[in-house]
C-alpha cells in the first residue's frame, strides 16, 4: 500500500450495492485521522455535532456527562463559537463508571444548574456518551428524575459514537432529541416547519416564495426560533418539510406524538430534478409552480462556468451530497476526476448513473488508511469542491461550500456556480 486506494464508478456499478468494497466500510479497517476525515471523527469540530446540535433548543443549557476526553473539544469549540456559558460538565473517572455512582448526581446537577443562572434556562439537555451506551443506562429514567428535581424540561442527547454505523446513528437520534420537548398544540393550516439542518436555510432560496404562494404565513426552523416560546409553536405546524433524510426519524416521531405529517424533498444540485420536485410539492400543497425565472438564472450561471471547462474534484464535507453533486456536474457537461465519498445502498442509484457518463471517475474514501499516500498530482483537478477535497488539492482553486447557512434549490445551484465563476 503506497498509493491511495480507490475504485472507479464503473467498477462500483458492476459490483452493485450488495458488494460494496470494504474500503468504504468504516468498520472494516482502521480509520485515518486527517483533516479530511474530521466530519466522521468529530462532526462537532467542523460544524454541528451532537453537543452543539443539542443546544439548538433556544435558551437551553447542556450537562455533558462523560470522561474528560469527550468534553474537552466542546469547551474549546464553544469558546470560539460563543456558547461557552451554556455547557456544564460532569467529568467521570473509572471508579464512577464501574460503580455507576455518578448517575445519582445527575438530577442534583440539573437542579444546581437551574438555580445557578441569573436567567433560568428553558431546558436542560443531558448529553450522555458511549460510556452510557455500553452500561445500558436508562437515560429516560434519568431525564424524568432530573425534571422532577429541577422543575425544567429535560431531554437526553445520545453522543453514542459506538452506534454510528447502526440504523440510529448519533446525528439522527439528536434530531429526535431536539424536537422531543414539543408538546401537542392546536395546529394552524398556514404554519409549517422546515426540518433537516441545525443552521438556517438560505432565505434567498425560492423555496420560501413557493411556500408563501401556497398561503403559508409562518415557516419555522429551529435555528431561527428566537426563544423557547417560538420553539414550542413548532407544534402548531400543519406539516413539516424535511430537507435532509437524517431528520426523517424526528419527523416520524413528531407525526406520532403531535400528529404533524411531513413531506420529504431532498437537496439536489440538478436543476431539472429541482424543477420536478417543486412541481410535485406545489401540486401537493396547492402552490403556484412559477419557477422558470429561478431555473433560467441558475442555468445561466452554469453556462458561464462551462466556458472555462474546469475539471472538478468533489468531496463529502460540504453542503451537498457528493454523488448528487457529481452527477449534476456531469449532466451539465463538466468532468469530475474524483469523488471523496462513501458509497452505500442509498446512493448506489446515483453511482450507476455517474458510471454511465463517467466510468473512470475515481471514488476515494477519506477514512482509508491508504489516504496517507494520496498524491494530488495523480488526478487532474482545476476546482476542488468541499473541505476535504480542498485539503487534498493545495494547487487547485478551492470552493469549500461549507458555510453554516444552508443553500437550497435553484438559489443554491446559482450561488455555487456564481462562486465557481468568480474564481
Amino acid at each position: 500500500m503506497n498509493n491511495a486506494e480507490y475504485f472507479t464508478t464503473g467498477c462500483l456499478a458492476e459490483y452493485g450495492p450488495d458488494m460494496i468494497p470494504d474500503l468504504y466500510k468504516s468498520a472494516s479497517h482502521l480509520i485515518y485521522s486527517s483533516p479530511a476525515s474530521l466530519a466522521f471523527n468529530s462532526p462537532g469540530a467542523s460544524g454541528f455535532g451532537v453537543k452543539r446540535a443539542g443546544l439548538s433548543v433556544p435558551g437551553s443549557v447542556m450537562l455533558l456527562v462523560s470522561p474528560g476526553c469527550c468534553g474537552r473539544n466542546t469547551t474549546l469549540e464553544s469558546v470560539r463559537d460563543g456558547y461557552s456559558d451554556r455547557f456544564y460538565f460532569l467529568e467521570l473517572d473509572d471508579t464512577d463508571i464501574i460503580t455507576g455512582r455518578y448517575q445519582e448526581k445527575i438530577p442534583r446537577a440539573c437542579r444546581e444548574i437551574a438555580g445557578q443562572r441569573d436567567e433560568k434556562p428553558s431546558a436542560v439537555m443531558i448529553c450522555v456518551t458511549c460510556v452510557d451506551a455500553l452500561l445500558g443506562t436508562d437515560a429516560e429514567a434519568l431525564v424524568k428524575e432530573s425534571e422532577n428535581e429541577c422543575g425544567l424540561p429535560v431531554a437526553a442527547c445520545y453522543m453514542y459514537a459506538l452506534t454510528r454505523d447502526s440504523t440510529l446513528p448519533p446525528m439522527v437520534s439528536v434530531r429526535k432529541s431536539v424536537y422531543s420537548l414539543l408538546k401537542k398544540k392546536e395546529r394552524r393550516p398556514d404554519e409549517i416547519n422546515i426540518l433537516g439542518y441545525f443552521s438556517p436555510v438560505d432565505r434567498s432560496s425560492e423555496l420560501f416564495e413557493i411556500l408563501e404562494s401556497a398561503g403559508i404565513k409562518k415557516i419555522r426552523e429551529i435555528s431561527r426560533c428566537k426563544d423557547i416560546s417560538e420553539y414550542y409553536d413548532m407544534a402548531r405546524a400543519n406539516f413539516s418539510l424535511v430537507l435532509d433524510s437524517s431528520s426523517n426519524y424526528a419527523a416520524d416521531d413528531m407525526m406520532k406524538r403531535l400528529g404533524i405529517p411531513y413531506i420529504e424533498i431532498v437537496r439536489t444540485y440538478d436543476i431539472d430534478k429541482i424543477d420536478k420536485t417543486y412541481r410535485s410539492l406545489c401540486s401537493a400543497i396547492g402552490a403556484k409552480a412559477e419557477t422558470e425565472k429561478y431555473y433560467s438564472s441558475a442555468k445561466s450561471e452554469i453556462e458561464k462556468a462551462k466556458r472555462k471547462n474546469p475539471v472538478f474534484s468533489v468531496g463529502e464535507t460540504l453542503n451537498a451530497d457528493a454523488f448528487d453533486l457529481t452527477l449534476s456536474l456531469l449532466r451539465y457537461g463538466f468532468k469530475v476526476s474524483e469523488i471523496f465519498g462513501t458509497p452505500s445502498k442509498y446512493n448506489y442509484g446515483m453511482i450507476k448513473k455517474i458510471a454511465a457518463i463517467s466510468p473512470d471517475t475515481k471514488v476515494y474514501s477519506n477514512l482509508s488508511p491508504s489516504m496517507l499516500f494520496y498524491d494530488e498530482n495523480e488526478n487532474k483537478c482545476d476546482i476542488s469542491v468541499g473541505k476535504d477535497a480542498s485539503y487534498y488539492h493545495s494547487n487547485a482553486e478551492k470552493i469549500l461550500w461549507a458555510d453554516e447557512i444552508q443553500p437550497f434549490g435553484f438559489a443554491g445551484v446559482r450561488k455555487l456556480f456564481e462562486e465557481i465563476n468568480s474564481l
Partner: protein
Amino acid sequence: MLRHASITSIYAADTSGVASALFELGGLTVIHDPSGCNSTYTTHDEPRWADFDSMFYVSGLTEKDAIMGNDEKVISDLAYTAERLNPEFIAICGSPMPMMVGTDFDALAYETEKRTGIKTFAFHTNGMNDYISGEEEAFYELVKYYSIEKHSEESGDFLVNVIGATPIDMTDYSHIKSISDFLEKHKMKLNSCLSMGCKIPDIEKIPDADANLAVSYSGIKACEYLNKKFGQNYAAGLPFGEKFSEKLADALKSGKNINLFNRDFGSGFPDIVIEGESVFSLSLSSALYDDFNIGSSVICPLKTDKNFLGKNDFSVSDENEEKKIYKNFKTAVADNLYKPIIPKNCRFVSLPSVGFSGRCFLGQIPDLSRKSDFQNLVKKIISK
C-alpha cells in the same frame, strides 16, 4: 473522584499525551475507540496535525465489537495496515470504551507484534487521566526500547537530552530552539530532544549524553530510568530568568539529581499564584523568586510529584477546589480559560497553554525561555 467543571475547560487527556509524544517518530499510532478521542487530540492538542502527515488512526470500535469482545478485528486491521505502511513501530492506546470492557492491551500488542514482526507498544490510557500520564508512559517505553547502549566516543561536548517535550507543553519548535540556545550559552549541547524534532535514531543516541533535562513532569520517569541504566543525572526545569537558568545549568553539569524547586519563600503567604503543569509552573515560580525576590504559590491540576510542591502549593482535581484557592490570592497567572473562576478582586495575568485551551490562544503563548518574553510576563505580574 467526581470532578465537575461548570465553566473551565479540561486538560488534554492521556490519549493525547501518547499521540503527541509519538507523532513525529514514524510509528503507526492507533487509538482503540469508536471515534471522537482521536479528533479531540488532532483538532485541539496537536498544532502539527495540519502541517505534516502522521500515521494516526482510530480503530473504529463498534457497539457489537465492544460487547462481543472482538479483539481479533483490531489485531487484523492493525496487521493489515502495518504490513502495508511499514511503520517504525505500532502503538495502541486505549480510551474509555476498551477500559470498560477490560481490553487487555498488552495481549493485543503481543499478538500484533507476533503477526507483523513490528515492535508494538501498548499504552494503558483510558481517556480519563491527564496528558502527563500518557506522555510519561510513552517517553518511558521509548527510552526503554530504543535507548539501549552508548554509541559514540566522547565528543568533548557536554551533551544534554531534553526529555518530555511535546507541543502540548512546548507549543512549537521555537521553544526547543530557545532551550538549545540556553544549553549552548552554558557550554552544553543538545544531543536529542524527546520528542520534538526527533526520529528513532535520535532516541537511540540518548545514552550518549551526559545529562538529561526534564522539561515537563512527563519526562521524569524516563530520566530516572536513564539515571539507573546509564548513570545520567537529570534536572527538572525550564530555563526561565537569569538566576534560575544558571542554577539549572549548574545542576545539569553537577552529575547529581538535584531538585531545584525550593518552595521556601520565607515567612508569610505569597499573594501570587501560578496554575499549570508542575515543572513549568514551578520553574516560573522559582525564576520569579530567584530573579526578583517575588514569592508565588503553584496550583497543579495535573499528575506530579508531591515532593516538588511546598506547603503553599496545591495539587487539585476539581474546579470547586480551584475557586476556593484563588480567593486567597491577589494575582493569578493562568490560562485564559481559568479567567471565569478568578475572583474579581484577584488580578488575572494571561498565560495560555495548549494543554488546557488547545489552539484557542496559540498566538498568545510566550516563550519564557526567551529573555524578552519572560520579562514581559514579569512586568504584567508585578504591575499594579
